[in-house]
């Protein structure tokens, strides 16, 4: 009797020790579950083409406020004020010309204006209007216009 009980106890301990690990191990399948954002996404959320990162979303709000009037809502250089400008604002969705620009150049243009990069003074400088971090947000967002479809 005692022996049987002892065995049962041992067995149950063993089983408990094993089951506790079940489903949480560092196996590939468990990883794929945990990396899956859809488990955290809002119920009924419609998947969008490309989810903007936090910085890009912040940049998007700033872009719409300060930049879109000339550069256009989709960065095509066709904002409502673009047609009053000569030269026209740059097309930010042109991937070949944007790829040629380094991040530092983009930050410099936004912060120091066109004149600081030897371009038209029609592009104003924003370094004293928004802070460095915000300029980075905008730069990150601008990159999304030319990111491949």
């Amino acid at each position, binding site marked *: 009797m005692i022996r049987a009980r*002892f065995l049962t106890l041992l067995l149950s301990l063993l089983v408990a020790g094993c089951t506790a690990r079940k489903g949480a191990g560092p196996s590939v399948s468990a990883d794929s579950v945990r990396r899956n954002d859809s488990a955290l996404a809002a119920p009924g959320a419609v998947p969008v083409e490309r989810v903007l990162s936090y910085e890009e979303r912040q940049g998007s709000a700033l872009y719409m406020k300060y930049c879109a009037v*000339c550069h256009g809502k989709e960065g095509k250089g066709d904002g409502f004020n673009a047609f009053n400008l000569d030269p026209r604002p740059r097309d930010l969705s042109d991937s070949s010309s944007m790829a040629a620009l380094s991040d530092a150049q983009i930050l410099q243009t936004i912060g120091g204006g066109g004149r600081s990069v030897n371009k038209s003074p029609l592009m*104003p400088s924003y370094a004293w*209007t928004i802070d460095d971090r915000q300029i980075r947000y905008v730069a990150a967002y601008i990159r999304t216009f030319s990111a491949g479809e």
Partner: protein
Amino acid sequence: MKPLRLTFAIVAVLFLVVLAVSPLKDYLREWKHDQIEYNRLVAGLPQRVKPVDIGIRQVWVQKLDRVDRCVTCHLGVKEPALHAAPEPFRTHPRIYHDVDDLGCTFCHEGQGSATEYRESIGKVKYWDRPILPRAYLEASCAKCHREKDVPQAPILNLGRRLIRESNCVGCHKLEGNEKQWTPSLDGIGEKVNRAWLVNWLKHPRAFAPSTRMPNFLLTDEEAGTLADFLMSFRTFPREAALEPVPPDLASAGADRKAKLVELGATRFREARCISCHPINGKGGYVAPELGKIASKVSAQWLYNYIKQPKRLQPGVVMPRYRFKDEDLAGVVAYMESEFVDYDMEQPPPHTPDPGFYEKGLALFKKYSCGGCHALAGMGRAEETGPELTGIGAKRLYEIDFGRSGIEETLPAYLKTKLLTPHAFGGSMKMPQFEFREDEAEAIAVALLGKTDDKIPPDLIVPDAPPGTFAPQGDFGKLVDDLACLGCHVMNGRGRLIGTDLSLEASQARRAWIEGYFKVPYSLRPVLTERMPNLYLSDAEIKTLVDYMETSFISDSLDHTVSADPAAAAIGRGLFYERYGCQSCHQVGGKGGYVGPPLDRAGTRLTAGWIFHWLKNPQGLKPGTIEPNNNLSDAEADALTAYLLTLK
């Protein structure tokens, strides 16, 4: 003996296995795997990133009494080189808060002390605050940020605005929100017709898509009874009586009528009614839709209302236009002929139920109409819905998800409740607001931020105290009569649709302000909300401008520049060649139209204003998109001198 030995052998082996379980389990810890993986990842990076020692890591935030072990696996949160690494190693987005300062779960929720993924996200039994889905993350900003416009939290700001505008506090108690002005129902029987009222009660948005009034999903019978009940209230507040319409309007022949309509159309345009009122969805957004107004209100009510809005509807934010009697008759004739709903459904003929009053009153109370609308001296009712303060900390077991079949989380519950209030049961009283999905999410975000967390006082960013500016005397009476604060802000009070007038006399020249009252023209013709022509008398204009010249002025903005043409020439160069001001401003028909045209800047603006504006635009008008160009005093002087020559 033998079986005993065998048993002993088996037991010994089993015991060994059991003992081995513990070190094995420890070796296989999820986070250890992640840390090894992390070290492998950073070893392969071109940049030098320090590998981590294997072990539990945590952030202890004393002031919030939180210990977050999320950083055990989220190892790259502060490592910029890992901005494109796979989760859980990716750099945290650059925000204004530091993980050492606030920890993780204060914003993200979840179980900070857990060391296993499933437990840390808090989707386990008895953990009431699971990790917030990304769409609802801004809820946490609300814990400390009580100000109206939280920087970088557009969803939270939208949610708070919708809560305010939808007047949720009509029925629910919610800290930090006050009941909005809503029209009183006194005299409604003299104002509208029953057919309209029945249709309105059944589906308000069918008549006015922009209305704040929600849909109570009334049955035909309920709508009819409630309409009969409301139509029996024929006394206006403070016993105001309707004047008869002028005989000209009442009994005009066809010719005369056509003339009146034509005159009214002109006055209607000049008065810029559409600055505030939408007409079939086009126009302003702060006042009710006018597109079908003639099918709603009687001509007599309309005439009396436009003549003296506050007499019939105390507290309404509508200016009293100084129309001549003939002009007013014209405006009413025009609106009566133009804004008719030809498709209005006529309810079937009926005889009122003899008990309509009792039944209607019961319905009025059941749906808490009195939460928003005052009626017959009852004032506005107390809140009848559940209190919403602290709803962000609501425990899941307190929520009845019914048969909705939705995911059982608080965000999902709130969103569903806002979209389809009756999803959790049929007898709920909450009306349908017809929010869009993103609007419902935004409101849920604002509500989720109403937690019961104890926030250290030094972290709280309070809202600006409400403005207390209350002009008195003749000026005060005019401000009230003309509802100036409906569109303008004065010393922190009012609604900013037009401009902030607190420094108006420092900004604009006296002659220009006087002229502007006579012929208001828009500096930015693309705007819908333009200053209306209120047809003020010279004496009234003088009262207004005199007050501005003594009160809406700041000596700190005084500045003089030399009238030397050479300075102006330098300024012109700066304007066109260096700062590219013509990108946004028109001068002489050339230039952009983002900012106002500067053609008559020298007539309109003072030297002090131009100078200080150029030096720091956001200092004078927070949020303006005019960039601060960091001008030197000499540059600003030269530009000011140039702009003053534009007359």
